[in-house]
């Protein structure tokens, strides 16, 4: 079980990190794709396995929660990362922007996904106990 869960997390994190790094032209908050991948894979695995098993299963592992968790964390990290696609502000505000991530569409996407994820729990999954 542990090995299958880990494998699903690692493979999905590889795919997710590759897609978001190409799409959003970022290497994550640490400027390094390896660290970006490690954090996404770890979050996807450690939080994904704690989520109630939903969706299709493969070798006894519900892979959907692990992938969902990976996507959410990757989106959050992209929202908090420097990206070349960011529109830079005038020079006077440059210093502030350099120190802080920009509140842009990625943060909003992340929040909408979270809202749907949370509301979906009450719609599709009756709580145990």
């Amino acid at each position, binding site marked *: 079980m542990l090995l299958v869960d880990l494998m699903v997390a690692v493979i999905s994190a590889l795919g997710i990190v590759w897609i978001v790094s190409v799409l959003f032209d970022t290497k994550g908050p*640490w400027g390094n794709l390896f660290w970006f991948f490690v954090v996404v894979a770890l979050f996807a695995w450690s*939080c994904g396995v704690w989520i109630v098993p939903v969706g299709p299963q493969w070798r006894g592992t519900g892979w959907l929660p692990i992938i969902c968790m990976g996507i959410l964390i990757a989106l959050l990290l992209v*929202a*908090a990362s420097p990206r070349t696609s960011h529109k830079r502000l005038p020079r006077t505000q440059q210093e502030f922007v350099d120190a802080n991530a*920009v509140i842009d569409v990625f943060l909003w996407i992340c929040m909408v996904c*979270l*809202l749907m994820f*949370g509301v979906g729990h*009450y719609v599709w999954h009756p*709580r145990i106990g």
Partner: protein
Amino acid sequence: MFVADLLIASISALCIVWIVSVTFGTKGPWGNLLWFFLVVALFAWACGVWLVPFGPHWRGIGGLPIICMGIWIALLLVAVSPRSSRQRPAVHKKTLSHHEDVVAIDILVWLVILCLVIMGVGHYAWYMRPS
């Protein structure tokens, strides 16, 4: 259930954000405590309610998964935020062009990784998944 979950997420996120902002001297990756709080609260609620119920229950509501989720996300966000405890020299900052946005891999990243490993391994040690 929904309101209680949201209330637990909001209150715990308020406390967590306040504690980490004071401890690490940060306002989060967006330089704004309100956004920091909103993201932590949303993550704590949205992901916390999906976790298997564990820990003490109060009126059918288990707050521990929500609080745990809030702590992990707050730690992760602090790890990618500019912090006053990790000041960059002013002169050095001017000379950097591309890499000045990049966050250093420090003790906090390792702490997040350690917490995640313990949480993941703990699942197999403490919780038998229904087959």
